[in-house]
């Protein structure tokens, strides 16, 4: 299989392969003893991501005859700014060493964004799925996400995209931070510096955010939640090796949080490699939690836990074309400009 895979990878452009984390089978190199991933001093990062319908490419097939959107025809994608948040987490991992956990809430099919996260080199992925979560607005969503972060034992840094392209609310980040009691820096266009917690000191993060007509730089004590914008970075592509490793991975219900499978020495560890940072990397599961696993209050979940209701939805209908077409030559444009000046549209 390895040979076959290598042959296939031979066709992959070099830049693509060069971006892939350096992974070699760990069990083969077991003589190189290393600290385990359960190292308490290690930086812990949780990335919150969402699978969304691709509302940015609503054209052609996605439009119904009456000019409204056919949502079912929109492909499900990794919310773009969540990919930026993930990239920021992976860069911090590359620089400081960190354990990166990706959490998503959604239907079982949302496992795809978790796979995409594994393909890029995260350590652990968690799927929050339950019929009881359905119909959640931002308040009920942030409740579930905050419970998941708590169940993970908290962390040093929570990262998420500024907003999701299906709702564009930018609310879930700050609401999750409030529920965790973490401070927040939203709309981050650059993470300037991270001082990892060490020797009893709590650590801090400095980030720059865009504001109207300028920017501001803030420093927060850890733990802290950052929401990241598309300006922050260029997300890395999936690693071919990791795609081969994880493409078939399925979600597995694990009511109790037990991270021993992340320990390369444990029998539960199914995939063990040495990562680019020299640490053992062990990943094998998509942990799945429902409301019972999270010990959630039913009243605060899903539609029941959502203060807002949609009263009415109106589709925006494309009007029929009424544009007067102008010939793109000197004569045509001269007439157009003349007309606009005559009508005092242009001065």
């Amino acid at each position, binding site marked *: 299989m390895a040979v076959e895979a290598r042959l296939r990878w031979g066709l992959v452009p070099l830049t693509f392969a060069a971006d892939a984390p350096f992974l070699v089978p760990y069990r083969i190199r077991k003589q190189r003893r290393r600290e385990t991933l359960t190292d308490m001093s290690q930086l812990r990062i949780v990335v919150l991501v969402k699978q969304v319908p691709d509302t940015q490419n609503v054209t052609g097939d996605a439009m119904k005859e009456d000019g409204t959107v056919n949502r079912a025809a929109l492909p499900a994608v990794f919310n773009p700014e969540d990919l930026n948040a993930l990239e920021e987490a992976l860069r911090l991992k590359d620089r400081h060493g960190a354990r990166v956990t990706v959490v998503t809430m959604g239907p079982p099919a949302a496992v795809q964004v978790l796979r995409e996260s594994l393909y890029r080199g995260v350590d652990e992925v968690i799927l929050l799925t339950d019929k009881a979560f359905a119909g959640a607005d931002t308040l009920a969503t942030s409740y579930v996400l905050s419970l998941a972060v708590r169940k993970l034992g908290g962390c040093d840094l929570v990262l998420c995209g500024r907003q999701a392209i*299906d709702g564009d609310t930018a609310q879930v980040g*700050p609401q999750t931070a409030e529920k965790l009691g973490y401070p927040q820096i*939203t*709309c981050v266009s650059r993470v300037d510096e991270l001082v990892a917690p060490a020797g009893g000191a709590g650590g801090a993060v400095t980030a720059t955010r865009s504001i109207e*007509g*300028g920017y501001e730089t803030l420093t927060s004590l850890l733990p802290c939640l950052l929401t990241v914008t598309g300006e922050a970075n260029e997300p890395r592509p999936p690693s071919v090796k990791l795609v081969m490793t994880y493409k078939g991975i399925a979600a597995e219900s694990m009511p109790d949080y037990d991270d021993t499978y992340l320990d390369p020495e444990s029998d539960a560890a199914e995939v063990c490699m040495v990562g680019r940072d020299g640490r053992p990397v062990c990943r094998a599961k998509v942990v799945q939690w429902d409301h019972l696993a999270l010990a959630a209050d039913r009243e605060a979940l899903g539609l029941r836990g959502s203060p807002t*209701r949609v009263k009415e939805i109106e589709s925006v209908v494309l009007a029929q074309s009424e544009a007067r077409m102008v010939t793109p030559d000197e004569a045509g*444009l001269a007439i157009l400009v003349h007309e606009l000046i005559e009508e005092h549209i242009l*001065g």
Partner: protein
Amino acid sequence: MRGAEAGDVWVVVEQHDGVAAEVSLELLGRARELAERLGVGIGAVLAGAGAPVRALAPALIARGADTVYLADHDDLGDYLALPYTCVVVGLVRAHRPQIVLYGATTSGRDLAPRVASALRTGLTADCTDLRIGDFSAKGETYADLLFQIRPAFGGNIIATIVSPEHRPQMATVREGVMVMPEADESRTGTVVTVPVQRSSAPVAAADRIVLTDADFAVRLVKRVQEGKRVDLKGARVVVSGGVGVGSREGFALVEELARTLGGVVGASRAAVDAGWVGHEHQVGQTGTTVRPKLYIACGISGSVQHRAGMDQSARILAINSDPHAPIFSVAHYGIAGDLHKVIPLLIKAYRTKA
């Protein structure tokens, strides 16, 4: 049927160095309409430090506030999410407004969700309209709810959101979609000075706002205003570029056309995301809403989210190589052609005429 309720309509005012954000004043205008319909008063929450912020209170009354809740403390000089959340949450708990409105600015969108979470109430982001009306669900009718109207799903739908059971009803509202009220210096109102105390540890106090050290876990290192604010809203002519522009260099052509026509440069979300132009130039649902006399869309296909921000322009000229691009459906004039050739011709035609 649930009857009408007491509780004022509030606007959380955003200010910088004693100057109120325009959207906050626009909100006071709409708050007046909502409050008159409900038969209640208007409250303005004003937080900051020192004389400039105190001087702003009468200006808010002139624009329509009946009561200004003034939280003036040295530690509130710069907007920071946690202490400002503490102020708004404390005031809402003490005075129980039925509606609280915020500008959908960077700081409004930072603050409002944090407050909503702390109060466990609903919040609708980026509204383009607010109305009062009745809502029925499951055999229950709720009178006089706040209809929070906003585009969603990439601007492909317009949703009306309500918050039937939870109070206050909260919304952030986009700048420029509501009419700024005239200042009426003869209006009278009350300025309530809110006692604010800084403490190292939490103190239980109902009569004042207590800011603890934990509220200052985030500290402002620097804030830079890059002088030239892009005045898209006030522009007579907006020339916008989209994906079809192709590159940062291509965008120079859009900028030249804008300069020639005495206009301002706009952009679609895609062009901003591509990094060709700053986000302050973005026109559309998540950017600025513009209503210029002339809007020129260059290489913009015309997603609903973009059209939502420009379709009220007096005249729209679309230049696009794809004659079937949706932008032509809102345009008054269309030019199907390569913008890299059309724009120089257009510049030449204008220079010859003017």
